[in-house]
């Protein structure tokens, strides 16, 4: 974002849709939130237009370290349609425009 107030160049944004830093994620994990479903709801990670394509693998790795579970065993959240954003006008026109 061009109007970003953040001056700290060392800030590590893991969720680019919602501007969430790794530090924010770690703060929740340190408070015992070790469930990706809960992190998503509390921090909005994975709720943006990319649906977690960037942040999910990074957060899963953090959760793996925190819980001692292998990365492959950390449960993911449900993937929601649409795969990529679609305009309401396009969805509304659907059938006639085929």
């Amino acid at each position: 974002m061009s109007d970003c107030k953040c001056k700290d160049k060392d800030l590590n944004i893991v969720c680019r849709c919602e501007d969430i830093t790794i530090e924010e994620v770690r703060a929740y994990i340190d408070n015992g939130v070790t469930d990706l479903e809960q992190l998503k709801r509390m921090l909005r990670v994975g709720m943006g237009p990319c649906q977690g394509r960037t942040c999910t693998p990074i957060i899963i790795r953090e959760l793996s370290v925190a819980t001692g579970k292998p990365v492959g065993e950390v449960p993911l959240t449900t993937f929601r349609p649409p795969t990529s954003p679609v305009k309401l006008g396009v969805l509304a026109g659907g059938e006639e425009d085929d």
Partner: protein
Amino acid sequence: MTRTADAVVIGGGIVGCATAYNLAKKGLKKVVLVEERYLAGGATGRCGAGVRMQWGTEPNCVLSRDSIKIFENLEEELSYHDSIEFKQSGYLLLAYNEKMVEQFHKNLGLQHKLDIPSRWVTPEECQDLVPHISLQGLHGGTFCHKDGHCNPFKATDAYAKAAQRLGVEILTYTKVTNLLQDRDKISGVETTAGIIETPLVIGCAGAHTMELGRMVGVELPIYPERHQILVTEPVAEKQGPMIMSFYHGIYCQQVPHGGFVMGLGDPNEVKDYDEDSSWQFMHEMAAKITFILPALKDLNVVRQWGGLYDLTPDKTQILGAIPEVPGFYVAAGFSGHGFMIAPVVGELMADVMLGEQPKYPIDMYGVKRFESGELYVEPSVV
């Protein structure tokens, strides 16, 4: 492992968390809350996040009016350090035919009797409130500036954290497998984490409360029904009020985060536990919302999801004791408006479970009304 508790709350949505908080606040020492998934993983976390006082029956008007009063100061009451994203930009309910105009005036009469500051608005006044609304077919509407929005995850988290500070134990990813009885009386809860011996149990498990009833031989008239929602990308503030049309069966609000959240009630929905998303919903939702709010056509949809209403035959919640099973209480069947009345429901249920006189009488919201036929048929539901 067997443990004991003064009371067990089943369900980690906002109703369960608010009830557990109020039980502990009233001095109950050992309260255990059992949740099958994670907190707000069911109906609460999947709801449309709106709060409104504009209802068509007295119970819903009163419970929502007083709950909104609690939401106004909830962060303070629960010492919550985050924001519950509560905003009061009003609800604008739209009328598209004479029958609705008549029903809305009837509702206004009831609401005014109960000190709810709602009013009739002409189509032009609708446009003052929501400049991008289309006047096509619009007969007018009703507006209440006290209605609005609250973040269901955060509000549930606020109650859960406050409850835990008062000593409530919350067990997530724990499923109730049976309710135990000593003769008729409740004696315990069997869970995937062992048995909890307790004389008091409350079912706040949404549509699943029906299954809890069956464990003690009670048939509760609560049915699951899928409702779907979508959300757009966040944009600059454009729409204050939630708009609702019972004619189209839809609602749409811009939440504080910037996205437009909108949902649809499908009268042909099968009564089942299906929570999946459907393409048909996206298409129908988009068609209806771009008719009412044409300017939204350029907004990108980023996500859709489904959740379950816990419907009752009169679309009004079931609150109170189950007379056949002493010690068993129910707060369920909210029919799509549990989130917005949960703060008061939590207080009432704690009172009733502890044998105290609740703030208002709630006997008439009990399950017996389906036998006596004294129903509260709520007309204003999507």
